[in-house]
């Protein structure tokens, strides 16, 4: 159960010869104020992979996600997204429409896709139930706690039945119990539907538990410093969380994170 450092090239061509779902080729991102947020990032994500991004605050995880989603354009290099992907994204902030009730917020992507009302209502109901907010469809976002708002935004992404899911620290504001439950649900969903997931988290445990691959990034400038394949059982349960390989990966990633934090250029 060795930790595998793939070469950067591997990151792209590794796995089957199918077209990658997401592919960043020597991507650089410089913000208008001159901040170099990403430096020569080369990263391919295969369909069906569950990839977590781990790294210190400000290393460009959100930036990379936005590039993948097409919300930012790279300053150099290019991004390719596999076709036929129904993409959903959970932003780092809840990003709810303050004037719409919770259910309407969740239904937004469905409305935009012109789904008929009966089906979308049902989907919204299921998505809200999944995040434990079935009773809150009728309230306005400002009447929710921070964690509840975040859960609404998760429900909004899940309601679309995406096959490519970009999530930016979705569970950061949740207690461990809820978080573990949602981790399990997400993992199950991923397995069941064959999703491709790119997942930003600060929790090493979460990353290991969920992912088939963990990318470790370092900051200033943001770059990928390691690409760790997690080889665990297909069905991961609480037993996996206390298994030696799990601990091993955690220790490994923890070391990489320390390295990322201390390696920061002055």
């Amino acid at each position, binding site marked *: 159960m060795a930790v595998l450092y793939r070469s950067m090239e591997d990151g792209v061509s590794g796995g089957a010869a199918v077209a990658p779902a997401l592919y960043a080729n020597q991507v650089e991102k410089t913000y208008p104020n001159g901040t170099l947020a990403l430096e020569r990032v080369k990263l391919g994500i295969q369909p069906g992979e569950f990839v977590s991004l781990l790294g210190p605050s400000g290393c460009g995880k959100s930036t990379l996600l*936005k590039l993948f*989603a*097409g*919300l930012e354009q790279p300053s150099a290099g290019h991004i390719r997204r596999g076709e036929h992907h129904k*993409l*959903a*994204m959970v*932003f780092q*902030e809840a*990003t709810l*429409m*303050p*004037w*719409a009730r919770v259910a309407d917020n969740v239904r*937004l*992507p469905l*409305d*935009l*896709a012109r789904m008929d009302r009966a089906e979308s209502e049902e989907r919204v109901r299921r998505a809200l139930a999944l995040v434990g907010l079935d009773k809150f469809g009728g309230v*306005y976002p*400002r009447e929710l706690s921070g964690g509840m708002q975040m859960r609404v935004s998760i429900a909004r992404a899940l309601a*679309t039945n995406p096959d490519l899911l970009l999530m930016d620290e979705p569970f950061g504001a949740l207690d461990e119990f809820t978080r573990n439950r949602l981790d399990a649900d997400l993992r199950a969903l991923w397995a069941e539907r064959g999703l491709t997931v790119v997942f930003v988290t600060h929790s090493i445990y979460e990353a290991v538990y969920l992912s088939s691959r963990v990318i470790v990034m370092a900051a200033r400038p943001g770059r990928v410093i390691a690409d760790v394949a997690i080889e665990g059982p297909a069905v991961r349960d609480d037993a996996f969380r206390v298994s030696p390989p799990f601990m091993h990966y955690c220790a490994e990633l923890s070391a990489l994170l320390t390295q990322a934090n201390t390696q920061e250029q002055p």
Partner: protein
Amino acid sequence: MNPPLLSRPAVQRIAAPLAVGVVLLVIWQAVCTLMAVPDYLVPAPTVIIRALVEDWQMLSDALWVTLRITLLAFALSIVLGCAAAFLFVQSRVIEASLFPYAILLQVTPVAAIAPLIIIWVKDPTMALVICATMVAVFPIISNTVLGLRSVNPGLLNLFRVNHASKWDTLVRLRIPSALPYFFGGLRISCGLALIGAVVAEFVAGTGGTSAGLAYQILQAGFALNIPRLFAALFLITLSGVLLFGAMVLATRLALSHWHESEL
């Protein structure tokens, strides 16, 4: 749980300005009476009220004429203002190309182009409505454009990720975001529509057919019937305040559940 009557916000909102109004009126009355100011200079409130009652038939007819033009112009301003704002916000080039011409509408003195409008528009009511609209439309355009641009960038990203069409983005994101600004524009414009109707009648009105309050003011002025002039002015300002009140109410209904300015 029932707060005393006077500390309820709704009561305060009505009672406070009335109280101030009463105090002002009493002072006004006192000054007029004590200094024996002649009616034709500044009439005392009681004299104005008498004029209001005596000339009620004539004044209320005139008020109705003016209000009709006001409301038509206001409605037209909303429609045109929003349409222009929606157009402008589609692209910076469109905005840059056309906005100066919206300003042109605003800064062209109605008095100066009323003759041209009268020449081109046969129906006198329509001509007045057009003049008043010219006065009232700009704040709606300006505030609505500002509002349509003041969109939370995060939400804009959300819409882009979901491939929202320009139309959907407008209807579901930009318009709701713009509402506080839009209603701010309405609150400015409703008064301008009224004043525009009055000014239009001043400059373009042709008496007999549609005699609104401006006509009454002019006539009262020429005839030096100053109490009637003040009565007509009072009706105008009262309409203005009521219109504004209606806009405040509309704002509250539309925004109170989510916008901080109304919480």
